[in-house]
């Protein structure tokens, strides 16, 4: 029904999608997976002939035999929203902030049908009902900013399915959501498309999502690397790109001996209020020398804020202790004991500084000579696996993985006793992620650093952490040694998080056994 024939997307910089061919049958669910930049979103948008600015489509994309790329705009407008529908990744930006959600859901009806106002109102009410929004007390009169991310994405689903479309393209519909709402939205999307008999092209990098499709196409560097039944591609990937997708695939960490020291970084009854809301609520947390503590929880559960409060980067109530002694949480003080590695390598460096200036920064004010600082910076770079000649360059000359190494070098240069990594690897591709994780692991083992890391990837948590703390709504609701927590989760929030990886776990289990044995 929908077919790509030698489809090409090109920008001024070159070909982004390089001649792919693919077919999607009536009512079929196809997952398009691949690393960021592999061209999967551009391929998805071609089904509505909606290239982003500066991108040109060529080749053929046919819908029921008609080439969409050669169809005049006026007729495309008639197809879009009625027969071909789309759901975007970012629920925060995909809805018009100045329009009530009822009006936004009604829009396709208004554009494509002659239904009277009362019929349209009924249809909107029906969609709100069907997407579970009505049950959550969300009426058509609400504005997008009044809804949670998951609710907004439900509105997007309602918009896409307002008229019975034949094809729905969903571009990473769940990746901006926390794991609980992601699961619910995905279930809803699958159920509704199945009900309407619509074909679904779902673009994702999350294998748990891809598993729910009939077929999977793996994209890499603008081409389809492999394509096949979902189970086949996931269990026995033939291409290198297919294998690289597997979370934690090939991650092998040496067995560790538990030689835990005294608490290094400790918070007692830490509370943070932001915007009249209690973001962190009387949390006790501590990490010992040589220990790896993972902090997990849905987005907005307060993980990052808690860590920033411990380091004195946000004002907080409660007591912070460094090496057992209470201190005023001032970053100038805490920074001598604990350093931080940030999530986004793009914003964690001053673009006007050289790598040398960046890495030397924590040595500021220690009365060291320039030569001594340079020496220490060079040493730190070597420890994270970079060449010394990197010192003279600026951070934008490096790849994401290399930048994260520079960030770790900066954190390490002053020999801190504790390291806080805030999703330090989640912006990286699987292979690079593995390298960085192994680097962190080695640092803890060899230098006895206390590591606190925030992560969404539970496979990673299971492999790297000694102890896991689960956060929900500003509190630590469960805290336990890693294997205990994974084997016998006690709190509902923990179980909800673990449910998300159940599917993926079944086939990964044997790999993990191998990993641990190695």
């Amino acid at each position, binding site marked *: 029904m929908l077919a790509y024939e030698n489809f090409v997307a090109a920008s001024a910089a070159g070909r982004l999608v390089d001649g792919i061919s693919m077919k999607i049958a009536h009512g079929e669910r196809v997952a398009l997976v691949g690393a960021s930049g592999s061209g999967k979103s551009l391929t998805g948008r071609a089904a509505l002939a909606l290239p982003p600015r500066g991108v040109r489509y060529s080749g053929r994309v046919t819908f029921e035999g008609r080439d969409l790329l050669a169809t005049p705009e006026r007729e495309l407008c008639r197809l879009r929203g009625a027969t071909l529908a789309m759901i975007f990744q970012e629920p925060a930006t995909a809805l018009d902030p100045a329009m009530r959600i009822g009006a936004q859901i009604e829009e396709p009806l208004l554009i494509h049908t002659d239904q009277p106002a009362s019929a349209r109102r009924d249809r909107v009410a029906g969609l709100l009902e069907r997407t579970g929004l009505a049950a959550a007390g969300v009426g058509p009169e609400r504005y997008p900013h009044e809804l949670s991310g998951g609710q907004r994405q439900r509105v997007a689903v309602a918009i896409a399915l307002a008229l019975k479309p034949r094809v729905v393209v969903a571009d990473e519909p769940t990746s901006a959501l926390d794991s609980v709402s992601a699961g619910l939205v995905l279930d809803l999307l699958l159920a509704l498309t199945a009900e309407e008999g619509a074909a679904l092209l779902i673009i994702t990098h999350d294998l748990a999502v891809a598993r729910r499709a009939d077929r999977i196409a793996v994209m890499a560097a603008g081409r389809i690397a492999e394509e096949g039944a979902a189970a086949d591609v996931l269990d026995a990937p033939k291409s290198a790109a297919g294998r690289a997708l597997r979370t934690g695939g090939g991650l092998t960490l040496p067995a560790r001996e538990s030689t835990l020291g005294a608490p290094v970084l400790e918070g007692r009854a830490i509370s943070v209020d932001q915007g009249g809301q209690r973001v962190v609520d009387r949390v006790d947390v501590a990490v010992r020398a040589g220990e790896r503590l993972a902090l997990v929880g849905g987005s907005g559960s307060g993980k990052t804020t808690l860590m920033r409060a411990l380091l004195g980067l946000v004002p907080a109530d409660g007591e912070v202790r460094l090496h057992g002694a209470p201190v005023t949480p001032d970053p*100038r003080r805490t920074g*001598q004991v604990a350093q931080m590695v940030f999530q986004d390598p793009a914003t964690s460096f001053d673009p006007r500084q050289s790598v040398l200036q960046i890495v030397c920064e924590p040595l500021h004010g220690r009365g060291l000579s320039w030569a001594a600082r340079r020496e220490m910076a060079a040493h730190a770079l070597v420890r994270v696996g970079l060449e010394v000649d990197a010192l003279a360059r600026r951070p934008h000359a490096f790849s994401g993985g290399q930048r994260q190494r520079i960030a770790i070098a900066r954190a390490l240069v002053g020999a801190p006793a504790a390291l806080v990594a805030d999703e330090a690897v989640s912006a990286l591709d699987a292979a690079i992620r593995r390298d960085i994780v192994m680097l962190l692991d080695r640092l803890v083992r060899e230098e006895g650093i206390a590591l606190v890391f925030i992560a969404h990837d539970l496979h990673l948590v299971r492999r790297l952490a000694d102890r896991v703390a689960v956060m929900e709504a500003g509190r630590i609701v469960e805290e336990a040694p890693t294997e205990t927590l994974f084997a016998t989760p006690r709190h509902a929030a923990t179980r909800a998080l673990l449910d998300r990886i159940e599917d993926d776990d079944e086939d990964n289990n044997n790999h993990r056994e191998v990993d641990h044995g190695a």
Partner: protein
Amino acid sequence: MRLWIGGGATAFLAGLALIAAWWTPYPVGTIAIAERFQPPSAEHLLGTDHYGRDIVSMLMAGASTSLGVAALAVAIGVAFGVPLGLLAASGGRWVDAVVMRSADLAFAFPALIVAVILTTLLGASAMNAAIAVGIFNVPVFARLAAAGGRRVLALDFIDAARLSGKGRARIALEHVAPNIAPVVLTQAATQFAIAILAEAGLSYVGLGAQPPTVSWGRMLNEAQTMIAIAPQLAVWPGLAIVAAVLAITTFAEGLRARLDPRFARAVVVD
């Protein structure tokens, strides 16, 4: 491309203005009624005005007044506005509120009104015009620096710097200022163009440069009385202003594209 054309034209005008401070082809202070209303010739490229003064010389002298006043006005705006903005962005909530409310208040006083007050107090002069336009520029740069500064201060590398033991002032100086420099520079070029227009308006209505100082705005004023007899007198100063403003705004646009201010976007108050 724009950068070079605009920059070249701006440099050319600035050069003429600089030269005119010491030398013009003919003196602009002497009146020679016998020579008046001469058509363009080899001696007087653009002819002479109603007092027999060489128009090319007048334009050059006017350039040094206009560009000098504009440069001073922008310098005042940057020198006071940027530190105030940085203070607002990195200081506490009270400092922020006081600086920003003052900036709001200052916006309520158009340059012309400040010039009126200054002229009533001190009498008209080119310097007063520069101060009036400069005062108007202060809140422009304060807001720009505060907005850009806040955006930079929210980035992760600022937290890294804080953990490295740097204090507020040091961070403002070492990290925030260099990162907002491109936007400030671009805005400075834009404000320079606006200042030229403002100076022309002020000296036209008699709130700026006074005789015998020559300025483009005053040339326009004098030309108006002659407009029925010698319309060409009104053409040249007007064209000079348009050329200067176009050159500088082109330069500013080129600068904006080249410097690509990544973290701090310019506010569009041009």
